[in-house]
């Protein structure tokens, strides 16, 4: 009983501990990859709050990711001496505002309509990013250098990958934990119940439109934070950060990992980035393989990798004769 309740906290602590020893074990190349995985993990977690928790299929999540990425790049270039914290703060403020306005327009529609409109909005942002050459750099993109991190009592240089890895681990890790905490709050539970039965929630007196708008804005800001770190990690930002391909990427990651659980998408990111790095060495056709895996999962394993793991675990538990774990869990709570 106690272990059930503490399990997420133990998992979080274990993941942080694991992340903390990684710089001692991994080479620079792999540390870069791990940083990328952590950044995309936050992006996928924010996407899953929409898809898995609220049941909203968005094809425009990259507009927030890209907006965060561009805000950091543009502000670091145009405001000399801007601190790391202010740049990230600006990105958060910007994506929150965009999320609120876009959400107000987009959330009037549901299902297919919503999916279509988010795609159109994403294309609009992409078109602007491509055409507004003076600000966004157009096809050339923007190069930046990471500013040092002021901690009040001391200043840490983030120029090397190790320092930046620590910074990413702490900030992005905290953001992911905060997202998890959000799903446990009354607000997060409201979103879940709204997906199951919106009519009833309305009868119970919840303003479902406001809840959805808050969720949409929140996920937008979180994706913006991930985008900000994307720019900081690569020290470069181009219009690909705001393209529909970036939405496709997060959709593949999230779905392959599994939309049914909070941690599933992070697993998806891990698998995706590792596959991308190794498959692209072997064959140029790796997006085709990703697409085939995706369609196969949509058809046969809608729960993604998480579902496979759970079935495997059930099978294993069944063989040992401990009964059916899912029913046992419900009886104990």
């Amino acid at each position, binding site marked *: 009983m106690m272990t059930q309740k503490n399990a997420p906290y133990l998992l979080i602590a274990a993941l942080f501990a694991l992340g903390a020893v990684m710089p001692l074990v991994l080479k620079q190349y792999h540390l870069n990859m791990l940083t990328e995985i952590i950044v995309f993990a936050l992006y996928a977690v924010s996407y899953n709050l929409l*898809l898995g928790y609220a*049941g909203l*299929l968005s*094809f425009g999540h990259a507009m927030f990711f890209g907006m965060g990425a561009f805000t950091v790049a543009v502000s670091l270039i145009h405001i000399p001496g801007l601190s790391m914290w202010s740049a990230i703060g600006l990105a958060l403020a910007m994506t929150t505002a965009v999320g609120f306005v876009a959400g107000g*327009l987009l959330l*009037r*529609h549901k*299902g*297919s*309509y919503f*999916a*279509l*409109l988010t*795609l*159109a*909005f994403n*294309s*609009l942002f992409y*078109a*602007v990013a491509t*055409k507004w050459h003076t600000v966004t750099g157009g096809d050339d993109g923007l190069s930046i250098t990471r500013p040092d991190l002021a901690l009040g009592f001391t200043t840490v240089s983030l120029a090397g990958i190790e320092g930046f890895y620590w910074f990413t681990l702490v900030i992005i890790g905290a953001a992911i934990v905060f997202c998890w905490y959000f799903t446990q709050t009354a607000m997060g539970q409201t979103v879940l119940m709204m997906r199951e039965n919106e009519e009833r929630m309305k009868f119970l007196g919840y303003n479902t439109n406001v809840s959805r708008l808050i969720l949409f804005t929140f996920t937008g800001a979180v994706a913006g934070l991930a985008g900000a770190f994307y720019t900081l990690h690569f020290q470069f930002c181009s219009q690909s950060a705001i393209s*529909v391909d970036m939405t*496709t990427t997060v*959709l593949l990651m999230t*779905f392959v990992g599994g939309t049914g659980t909070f941690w599933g998408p992070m697993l998806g990111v891990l698998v995706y980035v590792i596959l991308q790095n190794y498959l692209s060495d072997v064959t140029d*056709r790796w*997006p*085709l393989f990703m*697409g*085939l895996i*995706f*369609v196969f999962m*949509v*058809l046969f394993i*809608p729960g993604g990798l998480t579902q496979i793991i759970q079935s495997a675990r059930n099978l294993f538990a069944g063989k040992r004769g401990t009964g059916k774990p899912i029913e046992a869990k419900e009886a104990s709570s």
Partner: protein
Amino acid sequence: MSDFPVFFLHGLAYAGLLFLVSAGLTLVFGMMNVLNFAHAAMYMLGAYFSYTLLQATDQFWLSLMVCPILLFVVGALIERFLLRRVHAFGHVHELLLTFGLAYIITEVVKWVWGNFPLAVNIGGFLGDTVEIVGITYPVYRIFIFVCAVFVGTLMALILYKTRLGIILRAAVNDSEMVNALGFNVPLVFMGVFAFGAALSGFAGVIAGPLLSTYPGMAHEILIDAFVVIVVGGFGSLGGAVIASLIIGELQSFGVLLFPKLSLALVYLLMAAVLIVKPSGLFGEKQ
């Protein structure tokens, strides 16, 4: 403004192409309630099939007849073996499936035909120019518009004047009842989806010589077609006609009058329609 008639005709030609693409999209959406993200990918497939066929035979008319049939088969197979399976899981899964298919088709196209533009030239009468209202104008662009008018009329006649059209419209309202009356509704839906695919293939063959054939063409037309069905109203054939004309002309004159804003104009129109009348110009209230 001596350019005015030329740009007007350019707008009509693009509107014709846009209608051919969005008609299939809106038909499938209106009948089956499936928003087919793979529609534009099938359009691209049509263009590439046509390219290969033209390389081999150099017969444009043959390609215009064969490619839609090929796409009809592709569409029927997709509906029968893939889409029908996920129907029970709901809309999100249908969207994800068609989206995944679009992704795969694009990758396959890049693999088979390469990731660069291919030019399609047509000779003969269609490649000529003709004198109208005092300007010399390519016959091919007029041909596109004529094709669109022909297809639009044909669709309207089938839907509203034939027995098949009655069954189709009834199946949308109450598929179980129509099924109980002895009509094979799953077969009807398969036919609708395959017809939509054939239409996209037809549009793809036509688009080849106008725009060039390249892997990004699907995405480009997809957004415009989406804007057409948002502005025209979801599932409305008449709305698709009007919206195609508006957007075709807007694209054409946008380049002439506001070159810097031209890309954003279409989106601005869509945003305006969404704010004023979210169901689109001819859409039914949800």
